[in-house]
């Protein structure tokens, strides 16, 4: 029984909430500018609550099961985050209030900037970017502005390893850069020879994910960075995988010039079915003046009796504004809460256990699933979802079959350099028992793949819907309630 669409249960005249009568005199509505029809659905509050409660049951989520989606760090999202972010003093402050009235918010942001600097080994941080990709754009624009500030205009080349996430090349393209893809070597590292060849005077920078999307820490990361720096380039760090490094190593210390943090991965802010995220960017000292405006600073220093006065500051060579206002403040409160609950040792424990969980799970399945780069992994690993002796079975089939065992599948077909990739990120908040059960399912499925492949090809069986006709979706383009097709 599918859940109807809201427009299908709409009944003319219903209204889920009403508002007071005006307590002021009426003004004539503007002639010719009043709309005739507003075809929104008409529903009772009960209709809406019942509909969305029922829809929610069709979702898989961290709160309902194990979600080892690679590269996404689907760790547990503490419930306390949802409380603190809703404190009225936070939730009901306007972004343009006089700074004197929002010293709490500004102090929180300032402190979070300081903490992220400390955690990442950076000299400056902006909290403005809305997500990882937005942080990347911020970072690449900073690199661009840096070179231009030195009149080094020819630097327009960004190197991107072939294992990189799609946002890296897309970001560089949006920033007007030329993209050169770098092949990885046989151990999953940046190929130093290839890199050397590209280190010329057009080099603007390298976008490096480390640990990379194979879950591997680049064994020559220092050399990689040295080469780029020597050629006058900057190294951008895609911090999506920072969960592996908390308290283990600070990217700034090994020479990353810029890096984005994903608060919605590393720092437990919820993924929300696709967002919102938050992608603060840290930079080394030479890039501070290029940070987007505004950042939070101390306007007047405090003393024993008075706290400092916090306010907004515009860096002297700022690349400008990346979005409205000051970033995803609600997410910042959550991340602040989370970091507060960990401290130095707690953060390191996160990374240690994230990496332990990945290596443990890998150890349980690696005899059965081919591991293309056989090394100690970091917080995640990538195996192949296909066997030479069961060629009709694909990574996708394994993923769908996992659903029948009540697990969310790993990321599929990414990174692109692994054949039939299954990218598994266990996260530290899952228990040994859960990993054991997940490994058991993977081993069972491997067996099924060889002996009863139809179980995989026809999977999933136990989900609210089966496999979807994606071609039909793209061809017919039914994108709205009540509209049969976009090309009607």
């Amino acid at each position, binding site marked *: 029984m599918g859940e109807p*669409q809201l427009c299908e249960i709409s009944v003319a005249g219903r209204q*889920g909430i*009403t*508002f007071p009568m*005006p307590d002021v005199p009426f*003004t004539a509505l503007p002639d010719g*500018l009043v709309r005739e029809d*507003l075809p*929104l*659905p*008409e529903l009772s*509050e009960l209709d*809406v*609550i019942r509909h969305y409660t029922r829809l929610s049951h069709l*979702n*898989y989520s961290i*709160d309902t099961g194990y979600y080892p989606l690679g590269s996404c760090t689907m760790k547990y*999202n503490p419930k306390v985050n949802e*409380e603190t*972010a809703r404190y*009225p*003093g936070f939730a*009901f*402050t306007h972004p343009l209030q*006089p700074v004197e009235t929002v010293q709490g918010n500004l102090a929180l942001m300032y402190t979070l900037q300081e903490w992220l600097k400390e955690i990442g080994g950076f000299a400056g941080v902006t909290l403005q970017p809305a*997500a990882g*990709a*937005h942080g990347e754009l911020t970072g690449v624009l900073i690199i661009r502005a840096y070179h231009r500030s030195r009149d080094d205009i020819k630097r327009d080349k960004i190197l991107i390893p072939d294992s990189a996430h*799609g946002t890296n*090349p*897309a970001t560089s*393209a949006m920033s007007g850069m030329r993209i050169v893809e770098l092949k990885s070597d046989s151990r999953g590292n940046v190929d130093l020879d290839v890199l050397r060849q590209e280190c010329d005077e057009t080099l603007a920078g390298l976008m490096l994910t480390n640990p990379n999307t194979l879950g591997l*820490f680049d064994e020559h*990361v220092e050399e990689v960075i040295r080469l780029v720096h020597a050629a006058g380039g900057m190294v951008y760090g895609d911090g999506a995988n920072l969960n592996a490094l908390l*308290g283990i*190593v600070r990217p700034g210390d090994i020479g990353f010039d810029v890096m984005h943090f994903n608060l919605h991965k590393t720092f437990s802010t919820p993924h929300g*079915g*696709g*967002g*919102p995220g938050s992608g603060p960017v840290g930079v080394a000292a030479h890039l501070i003046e290029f940070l987007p405006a505004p950042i939070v600073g101390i306007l007047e220093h405090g003393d024993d009796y008075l706290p400092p006065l916090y306010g907004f500051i515009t860096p002297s060579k700022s*690349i400008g504004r*990346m*979005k*409205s206002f000051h970033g995803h403040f*609600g997410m910042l409160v959550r991340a602040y809460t989370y970091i*507060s*609950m960990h401290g*130095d040792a707690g953060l390191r424990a996160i990374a240690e*256990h994230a990496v332990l969980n990945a290596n*443990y799970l890998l150890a*349980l399945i690696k005899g059965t699933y081919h591991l293309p780069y056989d090394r100690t992994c*970091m917080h995640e690993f990538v195996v192949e979802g296909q066997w030479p002796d069961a060629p009709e079975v694909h990574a996708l089939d394994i993923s769908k079959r996992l659903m029948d065992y009540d697990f969310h*599948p790993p990321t599929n077909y990414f990174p692109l350099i692994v054949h039939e990739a299954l990218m598994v990120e266990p996260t*530290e908040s899952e228990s040994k028992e859960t990993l054991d059960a997940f490994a058991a399912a993977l081993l069972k499925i491997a067996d099924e793949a060889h002996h009863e492949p139809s179980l995989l090809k026809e999977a999933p069986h136990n989900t609210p819907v089966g*496999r*979807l006709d*994606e071609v039909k*979706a793209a061809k017919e383009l*039914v*994108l709205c309630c009540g509209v049969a097709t976009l090309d009607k």
Partner: protein
Amino acid sequence: MFIPHTDADRAAMLRTVGIEKLEDLFVDVPEKYRFPTLDLPPALTEMEVTAELQEIADANESVHELACFLGAGAYNHYIPAAVDAIIRRGEFLTAYTPYQPELSQGTLQAIFEYQSNVVALTGMEVCNASHYDGATAVAEAVNMAYANFRGKRIRIILSPALNPQYRQTVRTYAEGSPVVLLGDGPDADLHADPNSLIPLIDADTALVVVQYPDFFGRIYDYTNLAESAHALGALLAISVNPIALGLLKAPGFMGADIVTGEGQPLGIPLSFGGPYLGLFATRKEYVRKMAGRLTGETVDNRGQRAYVLTLTAREQHIRREKATSNICTNQGLIALASTVYMSLLGKNGLRQVAELCFHKAHYAATEIAKLSGYSLWSPATFFNEFVVQTPVPVSEINDLLLDHDILGGYDLSQDYPDLDRHMLIAVTEMNSREHIDQLVEVLTEVSNG
């Protein structure tokens, strides 16, 4: 915290992995940088962290304590309790992008309904699953228009009455691209109506961007502007306040090619500026050029109606540097919140809110205009925001208002040097007549003094 491993678990797992201690996992990390000590405060328990955060929050003055007349891009509207009841649900809150549709029909159908509601509201034909906010939505509109003409048109005309933060964001985004942004220079006539932009449109123009209501609260019918743009092959983007569309003619009916907007007024808390919601709708011919996620209806292999992300070949994870944008994580949960909001209010409720805003703002404007020393800056029709010329600098007035627990309007001199002593006042359904009368009374103090 949040790590379930017991000592016994850890020991067993290390054994399985074949190492002795956790440190052995990190041999690839350059030794000299390994295991830094982080200078962070000691870990707090939940009990302590809530107390600390409560204290920080209490150091703010919120619009629960202050009567708020501040808008300028973020508005204090009533948020029905049912909105939070839905978005708190773990199944929505802790899922990710619905890559696996069999496990994500809840999120997917919700996005589909979001798309439907935004299309209905804007009068457009297709809407994506969200951008970060109103500012980045405009920046993406610029990128889309530029790409639409394959680089052959590089002029983008920005109305000077487009939110200054949006224009700044567009400028940042455009840094690396050949587009030329014009129309909003210091010499732009702020009093001019939108038709004043028409002479700027030429065969090299990709896009004209206006706002509705504009940053000063004014409402214009952009039909003529759209026709003029279209006549020269250019596109028109209109950035909207969605609450206004509860009352006002939909931009889709004025000929807009792209409608963007800040979705915050649709049930999203002010939350000091974010997370908010970038609305983005367009016409069907541009659907493949649009950025962002898109949900389409289809069927499953059991013949059931179902939903799936579609036209993904536009996106970064498929197309990489050729993608329409780099956006990946969007504003999923906030889009859901706005959908619940729009569905609860529906056709009549949104109209009711819009009318309340309209009438209350006009009452406030009328009363303020009566004060000596104050006048309305523009005779143009407005929705729920308007500009007042003040007898003394706005910041002085705002200090005084704050003493009376009133959060005054936006000081336009921050963005428009010519608009020294001009305050942008926003009024919503949350402002009682009593609030407004208090505001007027305090303003009187200044006009008299």
